[in-house]
């Protein structure tokens, strides 16, 4: 288990960790007290995953550049 706080994890990290927790719980070879802690951690990881999935927001912008091709900002992409 990595020591990274759950709410700093990327989706993928949280996902891996969650997978691990589930695997451990399903194997059932964890002492009961520990499995409670594990479960709590799993719940936290699941929340993190769901939060990251909820962040699915579409934002499309086109980069504007100056004459030398250096980006200056964005403008909405007209089409689509």
């Amino acid at each position, binding site marked *: 288990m990595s020591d990274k706080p759950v709410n700093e994890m*990327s*989706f*993928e990290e949280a*996902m891996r960790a*969650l*997978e691990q*927790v*589930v695997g451990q*719980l*399903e194997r*059932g070879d*964890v002492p*009961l007290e520990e*499995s*409670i802690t594990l*479960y709590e951690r*799993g*719940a936290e990881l*699941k929340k993190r*995953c*769901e939060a*990251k*999935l909820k962040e*699915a*927001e*579409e*934002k*499309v*912008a*086109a*980069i504007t*550049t100056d004459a030398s*091709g*250096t*980006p200056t*900002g*964005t403008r909405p*992409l*007209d*089409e*689509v």
Partner: protein
Amino acid sequence: MSDLIEDAGPGQNAHEYTVSEISGAVKRVLEGEFGYVRVRAEVGRVSRPRSGHLYFDLKDDRAVLNAVSWKGQVARMAVQPEEGMEVIATGRMTTFPGGSRYQLIVDNVEPAGEGALMAMLEKRKKALAADGLFAPERKQPLPFLPEVIGVVTSPSGAVIRDILHRLRDRFPRKVLVWPVAVQGQNCAAEVARAIEGFNALTPGGALPRPDLIIVARGGGSIEDLWGFNEEIVVRAAAASDIPLISAVGHETDTTLIDFAADRRAPTPTAAAEMAVPVRLELLGWVDDQGARMTRGMGQAVLLRRQRLADLSRALPRPEQLVEGARQRLDKWGDRLDPALRAATQRRRVKLAEAAAHLRPGLLRNAITAKRDRLEARISRLRPEALTRDITQKRRDLDQVAARLAAVARADLGQRRDRLAALERMRMSLGYEETLARGYAVVRSGEQVITTRVAAEAATALEIQFRDGRFAVGGKPAKKAMPKKPPEQGSLF
């Protein structure tokens, strides 16, 4: 009027042109005749002045034709002429009156046949591969879920629309489009600059740096896609620190950027699929994990509860544990009193039996009987017999003793007589009697001297006479010693 007209001399009746006129006439003829031509040639020297126009030579083994493409034409060209390239140049002939030159204004240059172009592509690919740009170890894994996706493509058209649609379906993300020309002269430079530009953005800046870049273009001819074969594009893609997906042309089209990209997508839509996972699937996955976790947890508790129940069932009641013992205790306890009583009874009976035989009268009788027997024996003892025996033996002893004394007295008298006789004999035979007759004994110490030699050797001499000893020289002997029997022998 005739003198107004100069006579035409011989050879002077032809029309007289000015240079400009003739040049213009040539130009008209040339342009009229060669308004649209295709010329197959090898590209010679190429020059690109800052004006943006392109000057180059077209040649074969015997002739050289100057060619020029104006700036606008160059921009539209899919393939830029390069020295040594076998091409078919399309354009119109024209003259340059200022230099008495004719030239071909080239609209378009095509490689002379696919083969030639592919050969060139192959050569370039080898050179870039030799630089390690396509090495598998340079490939970076794509992020599982990029936050920001940078797309390098034309801002209008089907490609960006396809990508955005597919992204929206799967997992809506922040998309930054870097508009570029996807064909023509500027294509390569713009694409390369866009890739570098995305890499130059700082994470979390005003313009967020993408986690993933997609370089996309729809299908087209090899000439249309040519910009993506250009070295600057390939190098920019290889150098990108941000993982990059190339999606140029259709599946069958392969451009060099595909080899340098971390992943190659057959279509722009496929690139979007590679870029992000399906959100709904992930949500489902997360739900599933949650369910599995809960189930696993429940299972763990259930299993333990079951086990506990099993164990509790197997655990006997405490009463049960002592039941047997208690029963035995009761049983033995009940038997204790009767047993004691019985034992006592038994012993009492035995005691009574034994005691029954005990009669003091009997004992007394026995004692009396034994005493009587003893007294009877005592009465039979007669001391007279013993006394008689003793008296007889004493008389015998007295007789023997008297005889012993008589014998001893007689023997003693005999021995005394013999002794006196022997003494008398000794007196008459001893050397000392001879001394009375005038003999003397000479001694040195205890030694009897019998020779002259011994006498001379002796330190002191002692002479014994009848009435005593006399020392000659030295001290006299302390006491007189009787002569030894050997001396006596010699005297006989």
